[in-house]
């Protein structure tokens, strides 16, 4: 168990692949359709951030948790990094002219959410969602 699924993210097709893998894992762990959709939506947003801002990166999906199933997803890239994480986590903030729902939106979909970013080094966004 606890295999890590790595989905390289290079194009918009990979966004679909990543979220489908996430949904499949969630369903296999007994997550409800609703929670599996929340996981898939969160992965889709993070994967798109990679394509939009860093061009390429990777989504890692794994089951994590013993007594209570949990999905952990890490979205990693070696892009420019986020200058102001606090600002990036504010609703409506966007540097790309999108809706600006990205990170704060994803945070609302999941149980635990963490952003680590270094300017010029890249960004890692980690989230966890527990089976309810």
């Amino acid at each position: 168990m606890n295999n890590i699924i790595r989905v390289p993210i290079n194009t918009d097709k990979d966004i679909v692949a990543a979220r489908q893998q996430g949904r499949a894992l969630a369903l296999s762990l007994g997550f409800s359709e609703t929670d599996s959709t929340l996981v898939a939506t969160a992965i889709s947003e993070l994967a798109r951030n990679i394509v939009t801002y860093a061009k390429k990166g990777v989504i890692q999906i794994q089951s994590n948790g013993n007594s209570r199933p949990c999905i952990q997803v890490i979205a990693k890239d070696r892009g420019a990094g986020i200058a102001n994480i606090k600002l990036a986590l504010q609703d409506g903030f966007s540097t790309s002219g999108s809706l600006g729902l990205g990170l704060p939106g994803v945070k609302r979909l999941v149980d635990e959410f963490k952003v680590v970013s270094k300017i010029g080094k890249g960004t890692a966004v980690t989230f966890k969602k527990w089976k309810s």
Partner: protein
Amino acid sequence: MEVPVLKQGPFLIATVQAALTDEDLVHLRKAMIERVVTSRSLGVIIDVTAMDIMDSFASRTLCEIAQMIHLRGADTIIVGIQPEVAFAMVQLGITLEGVVTALDLEEGLSYLKEKFDSDA
């Protein structure tokens, strides 16, 4: 994955068959506005029953399609948003404001027919 578009009288029906990539969505946007022009359609139904999720890009593109079609003087109705997809959209902060939605294709068609009849 191309989205097939059927002409039904003065209306167009686009039925999404599977999960769409961003490129598919952009293609759909272009195809819909072109078809509305060439068919002189009064209304468009986009059936999203088969969409696995609706994230910020998908919803923004659908809103853009509806707005473009509105500027052409036609109506757009999004039908078939699944309950779990709707749940995730609201959590994410997506409301599809200004876009008409209906339960399914049947409801969408009857909405358009009613509107078309009362306009005529």
